[in-house]
């Protein structure tokens, strides 16, 4: 029991992102309203972004900004140790991923607006009914 607990505690960031992901996935699958599905999708993506951000983190490390300028021209410069700085790469990657997710979200919202204009509803079951009505005419 204590093993599992310690596993959960030690990798709590993993568990958190998995829980978030599942919440998002649940909303995308189970919700009837398209907007709610969209929100679920966003939670889902955010969970992955959080996961990436958390894997770049190191205990006791600081932002990867080297103080006192860089390069060898200042004599009092100590040796730069990678362990002192958090890994910037995952964070940078996530900037791109955030852009992607925002763009996707935007397109999806635009589509929702168009669907609403056309069918006056965003509830999936009603939509299905109206679409089939339209095409059977």
């Amino acid at each position: 029991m204590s093993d599992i607990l310690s596993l959960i505690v030690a990798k709590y960031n993993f568990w958190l992102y998995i829980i978030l992901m599942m919440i998002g996935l649940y909303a995308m699958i189970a919700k009837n309203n398209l907007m709610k599905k969209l929100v679920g999708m966003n939670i889902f993506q955010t969970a992955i972004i959080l996961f990436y951000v958390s894997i770049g983190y190191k205990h006791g490390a600081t932002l990867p900004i080297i103080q006192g300028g860089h390069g060898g021209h200042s004599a009092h410069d100590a040796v730069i140790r990678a362990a002192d700085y958090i890994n910037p790469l995952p964070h940078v990657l996530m900037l791109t991923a955030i852009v992607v997710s925002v763009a996707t979200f935007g397109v999806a919202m635009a589509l929702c607006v168009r669907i609403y204009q056309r069918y006056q509803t965003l509830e999936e079951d009603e939509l299905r009914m109206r679409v089939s009505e339209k095409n059977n005419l």
Partner: protein
Amino acid sequence: MNNMPAILVLAPLLGALFAGLAAWIQKQLSYYIALTAMAVSCFAAVSVLKDVVEAGTMQYRMAGWAPPMGIELKIDLLNAMVLVLISAIAFLNLVASVKSVEQEIPDRAPSFYVMYLLFVVGLLGVSATGDLFNLYVLIEITSLTSYTLIALGDKDRGHLAALNYIFIGVIGASFYLLGVGYLYITTGSLNMADVAVILKGIQGSSAVLTAFILCILGVWIKMALFPLHVWLPNAYSFAPVGFARVVAPLMTKVMVYVMIRLMVTVFGLDYILDTLHLADAVVWLAVTAILAGAFMALSQTDLKKMLAYIIVCEIGYMVGGAWLGNDLGMTGAILHILNDALMTFALFLAVGNIIYMRKQVAFSNLPGLFSAMPWTMAGFVLAGLSIIGVPPTCGFFSKWYLVLGAFEAGAYHFAAALIISSLVCAVLFFKVFEICFFASAPGDPDHHVAGSPQPIHYIHAAGHDRAGGDSGAGTHPPAGVMAEAPVSMLAALGLVSIAIIAAGVYAGTIVNTIILPFLQ
């Protein structure tokens, strides 16, 4: 340094920018810019293929930054082939699209071309990149543009189809991204070659296994492997014709390429086949996909939908072939990327022509097509035969390698599925040919009952009336009059038809110069 790999990807990207700007000046201009951009890209792709065949793998460092820091385009024989395929199909489709775009979305033409170019950039990038994260971003570019383009299509159902595609597409891409995250944790690198080297030492790790499963699962969702295919039929059949013609042959095939790339280059076939023991299960999955796709296609009454399900079936061919675990199967799978792209493209071109003339491709709209559009139908028949796997069309030869691979692996169920699906495809296509060949139109009195005595008299009389008339004319209005699609659309179809035959008869050459050297 040879800049062709960069030009290949950047030409359509810049083209998209300028096409968008040019639309402010004159709408027509954006089309010509797009066409030029694609022509440049196509030329670059061919020259890259030539260089790669002659001089081996080509590495291009964006802005001169060395990997693993910099971004690398790595082009070996496999992606050189895929790049040529993408750029050539995208170019040809652009040639054919001008008329159908004019007809379908006249007010949105410039945005169509901009999005179209971006879509192609995504595909080309996915195929050219040597970096796992870039792959994700480029897949998303491809997907984003395809969401918007699909939404341009069918006014009633296009938006909904696009939205459903978004939901599933996002899940697929996120799984892939998550897998890449795990890879990054274990290897600290994102460069494919780099990752591959590091992975060799840590194959037992469960994190690597998780990474692999997540990546492959993501890619499978994106390529619509059964049972993850539900988004595909609607998305492809409600897209505007100009886009359906390019997304149907390319999108899934590029995803198959990504799968093969991950399997061969990143994780390594040894790891996948010897350590994981998943191959049997995946081949069974492919068998299910093939049969399910084929039988679902049987129940369709709309040509576009039917073709969409055939794509689902063909995906099974490629996944199964790649997982058979021998060179023959992999050869078949790679050859089928090429062949299936050509055949699907030809089929959708033909469908595009029919839609251009008749607006709809429900089976009830098809009678009399052979006499009305003989050239289009010739291309359609050829591509259909290729799907069935009749020599000397290219479809036969990939099937040949796949079945051989199945025999070698002892996967007789896979061979049986291939044969059964060929038979089902034969039924499918000849059903369509028959409808198109026999001239009774939906409104005609002799349409419904095949076998009642009345139709025979009617058609016989018609036959004698037409005596001497030589077109084998139909009674569909306008009776016996050729009503062919515009020349640009026919020319594209003609070229692809030639390519289908050429890829067939030169299958041996393709295998020996491109696929086998790649696998070694």
